[in-house]
């Protein structure tokens, strides 16, 4: 049953060949989805050193063995490739409706190689696959392209996963979007799609997914909708999404502000969840079969701006990246900027951080107005934000350099060694200050695809004996509170376990907001859910091992691309104290403690501390020795 429902589809756009095969169930059990499907294929079929934007790169659009079943918080599509932003293994997940639709159409994953001679889209309808002309869609923003596709297919229910003009123009932080509001935002995977002249993958499936125990899935859904939403995690997500973090970090003094030179923002009240709900938000929206409904939608219709709720609304990461980082406090402008990024399919985090870098470069006199096409690119100058988004998406003027990401932009100007570049492995940092939660510091440094916050342990969940990580996630083996600021062995252990756990959640196309400690569903219920879909008598131990396999494979991928332990680092600004607010004069991460913590994590993983290479015996234990290469 599982092999049939998870057929792998292979498409070569250069030769226009299409084939498929059923994966073996033993493979599926060792690698149940997502990066677990992508990494073995990439390691076996992608030559080391391949340009991420060349036809030879492979784009893996994947789901998991449980995708498509009507369980809560498991709607995500996982896209993997070599990243054009980082040059490392690249991965990004998105919620929405597309992944379940692909499963209902008969496939678990699509592996795309080559480059079409002209713009095309892929159409998949109930097992039938076509490569179709997309010249009429190329250049269209995402809303118009989706409308046009649905009209020509005469099917309003076709699900469209697509790039916008940013991906077409090979912006290195272009994203991929489904249903206009669900983003594979990070790592620039939209540019990989653009480099293949692939505008969209339209999918329609009518086959219901067969599951082993439908009654158990229904009962878990009912529990989530009733008890789960009464728990603080569920209730907060339903009421405010991720936005309460604006207020929390502002009050703590750790809200990324003015390109991270400050921890408090004068416009904090304007971008608070309460004010955003009063000014721009309408009722929330759900992903496939999920009762939590955490997605925000914005609507604006005033003299200055019109914002269409079809494109969703800014959530915490965007509000901080385009708001406090740039000192822009106008909720209507933030809603419009978010909509514009979604129309062009641009990652708002990397965009905001690249604009932030430029603003600081100007403020500190490294660049002038003349270097920025005459725009006054300074903190608080909201009027430059929309023009800069236009320039980046279309690679016009300064936007052409900004489209390369902050690291390449800084390098092109000889400024890469200045202290205001905040990236890891080429990817701009997300909006969580590692100086107040050191598990995030470890994640930023050690993530295989550059600075990332989704598989990080967010330390406050384990800070005290009554924190949800301790009281509700004890099945993960952390029984004692861990100090959010420590970098000792207890923190490295916590990071190690949670890295496995969240990697597992990602790999299965589950949403981190569904499951404890971030979401309401307990670990035991998650395992029950996986058993109910697959019919496997699977255990948490087995699944954590599956996640661990992928971390080693990603490591091997990056090593052969030339990455080394020196790349597992943090931007220098995080080793300095906060300059303002409640944390002024405090907070800088101790470089020696950080170095020791990274080294200990290598040792936990069985990686050589000098070369970073996984030891052969460790790979043998994980049944990965075939991937052990020379060097």
């Amino acid at each position, binding site marked *: 049953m599982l092999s049939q429902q998870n057929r792998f589809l292979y498409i070569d756009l250069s030769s226009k060949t299409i084939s498929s095969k059923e994966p073996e169930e033993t493979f599926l059990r060792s690698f149940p989805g997502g990066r677990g499907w992508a990494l073995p294929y990439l390691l076996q079929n992608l030559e080391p050193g391949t340009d991420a934007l060349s036809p030879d790169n492979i784009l893996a659009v994947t789901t998991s063995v449980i995708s498509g079943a009507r369980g809560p918080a498991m709607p995500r599509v996982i896209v993997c490739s070599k990243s054009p932003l980082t040059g490392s293994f690249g991965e990004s997940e998105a919620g929405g409706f597309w992944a379940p639709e692909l499963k209902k159409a008969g496939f678990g994953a699509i592996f795309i190689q080559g480059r079409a001679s002209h713009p095309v889209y892929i159409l998949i309808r109930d097992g039938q696959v076509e490569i179709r002309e997309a010249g009429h869609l190329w250049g269209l923003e995402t809303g118009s392209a989706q409308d046009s596709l649905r009209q020509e297919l005469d099917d309003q229910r076709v699900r469209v996963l697509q790039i916008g003009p940013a991906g077409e123009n090979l912006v290195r932080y272009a994203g991929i979007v489904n249903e206009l509001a669900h983003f594979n935002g990070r790592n620039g995977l939209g540019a990989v799609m653009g480099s293949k002249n692939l505008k969209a993958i339209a999918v329609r499936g009518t086959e219901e997914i067969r599951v082993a125990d439908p009654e158990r899935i229904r009962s878990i859904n009912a529990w989530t909708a009733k008890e789960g939403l009464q728990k*603080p995690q569920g209730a*907060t997500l339903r009421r*405010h999404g991720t936005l309460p*973090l604006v207020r*929390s970090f502002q009050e703590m003094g750790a809200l990324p502000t003015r390109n991270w030179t400050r921890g408090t923002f004068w416009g904090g009240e304007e971008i608070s969840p309460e004010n955003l709900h009063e000014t721009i938000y309408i009722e929330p929206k759900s992903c496939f079969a999920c009762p939590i409904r955490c997605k925000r939608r914005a609507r604006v219709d005033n003299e200055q701006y019109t914002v269409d709720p079809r494109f969703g609304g800014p959530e915490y990461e965007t509000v901080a990246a385009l708001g406090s980082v740039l000192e822009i406090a106008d909720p209507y402008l933030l809603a419009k900027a978010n909509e514009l990024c979604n129309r062009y399919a641009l990652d708002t985090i990397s965009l905001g951080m690249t604009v932030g870098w430029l603003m600081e470069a100007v403020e500190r006199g490294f660049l002038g107005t003349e270097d920025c096409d005459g725009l006054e690119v300074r903190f608080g100058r909201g009027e430059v934000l929309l023009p800069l988004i236009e320039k980046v998406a279309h690679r016009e003027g300064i936007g052409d350099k900004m489209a390369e990401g902050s690291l390449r932009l800084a390098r092109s100007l000889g400024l890469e060694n200045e202290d205001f570049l905040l990236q890891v492995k080429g990817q701009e940092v997300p909006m969580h200050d590692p100086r107040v939660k050191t598990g995030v510091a470890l994640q930023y440094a050690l993530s295989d695809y550059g600075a990332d916050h989704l598989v990080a342990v967010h330390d*406050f969940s384990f800070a005290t*004996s009554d924190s949800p990580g301790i009281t509700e996630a004890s099945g993960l083996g952390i029984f004692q509170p861990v*100090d959010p*600021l420590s970098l000792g062995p207890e923190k490295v252990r916590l990071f190690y376990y949670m890295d496995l756990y969240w990697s597992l959640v990602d790999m299965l196309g589950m949403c*981190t907001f569904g499951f404890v400690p971030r979401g309401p569903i307990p670990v035991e219920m998650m395992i029950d859910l996986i058993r109910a879909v697959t019919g496997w008598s699977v255990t948490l131990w087995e699944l954590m091992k599956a996640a661990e396999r992928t971390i080693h494979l990603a490591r091997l991928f990056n090593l052969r691309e030339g990455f080394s332990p020196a790349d597992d680092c943090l931007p220098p600004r995080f080793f300095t104290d906060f300059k303002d607010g409640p944390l002024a004069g405090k907070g800088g991460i101790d470089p020696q403690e950080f170095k020791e913590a990274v080294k200990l994590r290598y040792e936990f993983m069985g990686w050589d501390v000098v070369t970073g290479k996984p030891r052969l015996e460790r790979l043998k234990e994980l049944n990965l020795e075939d991937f052990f290469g020379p060097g």
Partner: protein
Amino acid sequence: MSSGAEKMGEENLKIWLKDKRGDPDRLPEKIFLPPGSRLLELLEALPLAEGAGYYTIMVNGEIKSRTVELKDGDEITIIHLPVGG
């Protein structure tokens, strides 16, 4: 609220609360606790809406463990830290 909120004795600690959750009426401005009280005891005495596990506490502007012993005049900041925090 614990009886400590109403009783003020020479030997008691006076702890100032800065409720930062946009809900200033919920908590008192100050609370009195017996000497030797830890942050844990203070939190148990407060009517926190979602259980203390969902809040991060700063003592005099620093993030502290709940086992820290409080001193007279300490200023407490209570920060609601929801999902992903």
